[in-house]
Every structure is written in structure tokens, then in C-alpha cells.
């Protein structure tokens, strides 16, 4: 049972979980972001263990590389009162904790001795090519729809973030 893969998985999963817990528990947003980076990178590690190397690289490129930096950028541009307020009463905290624990127990009960039939797969061979072929043939409709989605997100964020220039009058 103690294969190298298992050890690697335990290590990566531990880092991912610790990153997630720290993200919730730290009060300084910058510290949270760094914790988040660790989680993102370890999730990429899990993808590698699952022979999804393309997804792993994209996970790092997009999440750890781009999204985190954009968020850091946003944090730096805002004012420096960067600590979150202390959450509500301890009773409430306890209730939330119980809820989380209960949910974890419910899920653990479901998966701790689940045996899924192993299917023959060839995911590790030319992983990127397989993804590309699926995207551009079988899933071309959702793929193209995603481009509309991204365009909407882009237009929307520009609309909402654009500076109000009504008071400056019409220069153009």
C-alpha cells in the first residue's frame, strides 16, 4: 500500500488541505492569497498523479499564475485595511464547525470504502492531444459557447469597473 504514489498523494493532499484551512483561518488577505497558491499548486500535483498533465499545467498557469496575481493586484490597489473582521459569536462558530464536521462525516461515510470498477484507459498517452481532439470535435458546442461566456464576462467586468466619467463632461 505504501507505494510512491500513495506517499506523494498524501503529501500533496496534506498541503492542499492545510492551504485551504489557512485560507479560512488567516485574517490578513495577503497571507490568505499565499495559502491559496499552495492549495492551487498541490491540486495541480494531484492532477499529475492522475496523469492529467495538461490540466495540471493549465491549473498552475491559470490559477496560480494568473488569477492569484490578479487578486493580489486587486488587494494592493485597495486600501490597506486588509484584515477581515472577527466573525460572530463563538456559539455560532461552534455551530458552523459542527455543520462542517457533519458534512465531512456524511461524505466520508460515502467514500471510505467505495470501490469503483476500474476502467481501462489510455489517458496518459498523448494526454494533450486527446483533450484537444475531444474539445474540437465532440465538445465543440460547449467550447464555442464558452467563448461567448468569456466575452460576456469581459464586457460585464469592464462595464462595472469602468470609471464614471459623467461629471467630466463629454470630451469625445
Amino acid at each position: 500500500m505504501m507505494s510512491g504514489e500513495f506517499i506523494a498523494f498524501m503529501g500533496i493532499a496534506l498541503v492542499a488541505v492545510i492551504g485551504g484551512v489557512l485560507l479560512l483561518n488567516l485574517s490578513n488577505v495577503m497571507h490568505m492569497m499565499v495559502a491559496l497558491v499552495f492549495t492551487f499548486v498541490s491540486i495541480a500535483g494531484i492532477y499529475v498523479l492522475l496523469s492529467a498533465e495538461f490540466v495540471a499545467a493549465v491549473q498552475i498557469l491559470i490559477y496560480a499564475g494568473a488569477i492569484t496575481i490578479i487578486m493580489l493586484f486587486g488587494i494592493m490597489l485597495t486600501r490597506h485595511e486588509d484584515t477581515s473582521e472577527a466573525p460572530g459569536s463563538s456559539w455560532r462558530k461552534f455551530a458552523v464547525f459542527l455543520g462542517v464536521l457533519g458534512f465531512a462525516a456524511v461524505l466520508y461515510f460515502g467514500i471510505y470504502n467505495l470501490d469503483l470498477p476500474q476502467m481501462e484507459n489510455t489517458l496518459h498517452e498523448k494526454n494533450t492531444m486527446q483533450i484537444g481532439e475531444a474539445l474540437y470535435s465532440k465538445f465543440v458546442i460547449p467550447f464555442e459557447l464558452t467563448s461567448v461566456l468569456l466575452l460576456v464576462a469581459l464586457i460585464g467586468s469592464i462595464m462595472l469597473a469602468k470609471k464614471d466619467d459623467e461629471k467630466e463632461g463629454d470630451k469625445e
Partner: protein
Amino acid sequence: MELEQLLDFKWSIMTPEFIILGVATLLSILDLFMPKSMDRKILGWIGVAGIAAATVSLAGFIDEPVTSILFDTFRLDSFAKAFKFILLIGSLFVLLLAISFEKKDGLAEFAGEFYYLFLTALLGAMFMASSGDLITLFIGLELLTISSWVLVGVTKRNKKSNESAMKYVINGGISTAITLFGLSYIYGLTGTTNIKDMSGTLMTMGGSQNQLYLLAIAFFMTLVGLSFKLATAPFHMWAPDVYEGAPTPVTAFLSIVSKTAGFVIIVRIFVSIFGSVPATGAQDALPMLLHLQDYIGFLAGATMIIGNVIALRQRNIKRMFAYSSIAHAGYILVAFTSMSYFTFDAIWFYLLAYLFMNVGAFAIIQLVGAKAGSDDISAYAGLYRRAPILAVTFAVLILSLAGIPGTAGFIGKLNIFMGAFATEPAHYVLASILIATSVVSYFYYFGIMTQMFFRPAADDSKFNIPVALLVVLIGSVVGTIALGILPNIAFDFLHDNFMQFKDFLQ
């Protein structure tokens, strides 16, 4: 897969979607090159024309047999057609509302975007209606959601709008995460995203206790996550704030198109996937959907009670309609819970009726709200003296919402009510909650009527109704009364063309 193979598919069945996409693109380009000072209303009319064209082209496919493209990532079955009609007609009315909406609070600057974001949201909803693959369904859902986030926050200089957009985004994000979590379990258990394959795999799998347990978890997570779109319990709390803060056409959009899309995706996923899984290991056991329907029933009951009871205390008409819309979603959930022979018909009819009565009501809310400058219920005092026809129109719509005989709302409720008894065992408790909460709802609906007919008016100024609003009002009243007196128009249409949705699972 070679290009020829791709081109072999019958892409023409996507014409309505292509029209909407094309018009949205056209609007964005026109908006870019139009001089800044020019009125953007013309873009709205182009959008209306586009939706009308899409409706016509959809009507052209009405006799088309079930067609699917690319392994069901897009499929046109009668279910898709029937609900796409509701989505298109609803969006048509909503866009007309948007055209006559007064552009203030920073909206004027983005009037062009305002119109084409409605179209992209509609596009997302349409894809949700006609796909048999979870990936397309999810992307459609997200397209609809993200477009609506932007639409809710579009009036930037309005604090309430900002607040509501923020709440909407956070709630939406959480609900999406929960939905995806649930769906990922189903995917993990079946190894495919194609809904038909999923149900096939699950049916033959037999299922160990563990797998069924996980499926049940997936069932609840997905249901809870998707309840955000419906604004039903437990994800209903965003509705009042968002309905109040968002511009009125957007509120109408959320309560009509977005809600319809939510029911569409719920029916699609739950009936196809969980309707075919045996709830226990035995082959002849009840499907999981029926096995767990008590829980859906519980949510439906809670939703009806919460919606109708809290609505009693509202003074702001948009908040009141938010709770009323929660309650109506609860009624439709009753139909979904009972899963009788005519559940689909009941849901379809109720959504259609709800479309007509609600869009008309929001048209009047928009008109009166713009005039009075507030959405307080007192703005409706003496409406009958000031504008008798308007008041009577509103009264008809409200009566329909309340479910008084002679209106579409009554027939809709009757269908659901009968459906609840048609199954074995019958859902007496749910049916009685439906009746009781309907009676409760009379209080607040009639509260508005009292204001309109029996209170003195604060000022006597008249309303001048823009053309677009007039079209909406006439359409909604005619629709409400016609469906109320002659419901068979709709049912015959349904039965003649859609064959009881028999091709839903094929």
C-alpha cells in the same frame, strides 16, 4: 473526427440559437460604432426583432423529429421546443420592458450593453433547454448566470443595485459550487457527461449500497445548488434583495426567464438521471427520484409557506413580488414532486401562465415606480382614479397571480392540484399546503387592490404609456384571460405538437 463528419450533422436545428447569437454580436458591433450621442433604443428594437425571428424559426421546427448534434451536446426534442417557446416569449416581453425603462443611475452609458446582455442570457437559457450533456448544460447555466449578474449591477450609481449585485454574485457563486460538487459525483460514478449514457450506466450498474448513498448525496447537492436559480428554499434569501435592487426589467427577467431555465435544467437532470436509478439494489425498486420525492416535497412546502407568509409583511412592491415569486416556484415544485402523468404539462402551463401574469405586473410596477420614484405600496393608492384602465389591468393580473377562477393562474394551480392527487400515494399534505398558502396569498394580493381602488390618490397626474409597455400590457392581459377561459388552446398545442414529451429520454 474529420471535418466532413462534423458538417454532416444537421446544424440547421440550431437556427434559433444562431439568430440570437448573431443579433447579440450585431448589437455589440453597432453599439461600438454608433455615435455616443445617439439613442440606443433602436438597438433594443433590433433585439426584439431578433427574438421574434428566433421564435418564428423555432416554430418552423415544430414538426421536426428528435434531432441531436454531436452526441447530444445539442438536442432538439419536444421538451426543448416547448420550453424554448416560453423562454423566447418571456425574453421578448422583458426586452420590451427594457426598451421603455428609464435609463438612469449610470445605465444610459451602457444602454447598448444592457440590451445585448439580455440576449446572451437568453442564449444560455436556450442551451440549457436543449442539451443532453452536462457540460453544455453547465456552460449554458453559467452564461445565463454571469449575464444576469452584470444586468443586476448595471445601474452603478444606485447603492441598492450595487448591494443586490454583490449578494447575487456571492449566493450565485456558492450555489454553482454546490451544484458542480453534486454533478461531479454523478460524473465520477458513471464516467460520462452524457445524460443518456449516465442513466444507462446507472440502470445497469445495479448499484452497491455505497454508490446509491453517494448518488443520494449528489441528488441533494444538485437540488440545493439549482434551487438558487428557482429561488426556492433553501436558496431563496437572495431574491428579495436582488429583486428590489435590480432595475425592474432585470427583475422581471430573473423571475420569468431565469426561473424557467432553472426548472428546465432541474427537470432535465433529475428526471433523466435520477428517474432511472433504482433506489435500492433490487431491479424492480422505485426510481430514486420517487423514493426521495418526500424531500423535494418538503422543500416545496417550505418554499410556499416562507414565500407567502413573509410576503404579508412587505411594504415594498418589488420585495413583495420577490416573495410571491418564491411562492410560485414552490407551487411548481409541487408539480415536480408529484411526478404524475401530466407533471410536464402542468409545469409548462404554469410557467407560461406565470410568464404572462408576471411580466404584465412588472410592466405596471415599472411604470408606477418610475412615476412615483419609489416602489412603496402607497404609490398605488388611488390608481383607479388616476388611470382606471391601468388599474383594472393590474387587478386582472393580480387576480391571476392569486389564482382566481377565470384566469390563467387558476388553471395552472388546478393542474398542479389535480396532479398531486393523481399519483399513488396522493400528496394530500402538499395539496393542502398549496391551498392554505394560496389563501394566505390573497391577503397581500388584495392589499394592493385595496390601495388601488379604495384609497385616495396622492396626486392626479396621468400616465403616458410608451408603445413598448403597451404591447407588453395588452399581450399579458390577453394571454392571462385567454389561458384562463380557454386553457385548451395551450393544452391542445401541447398535445398536438409535443406528444406528451415521449421523446424526452430517447
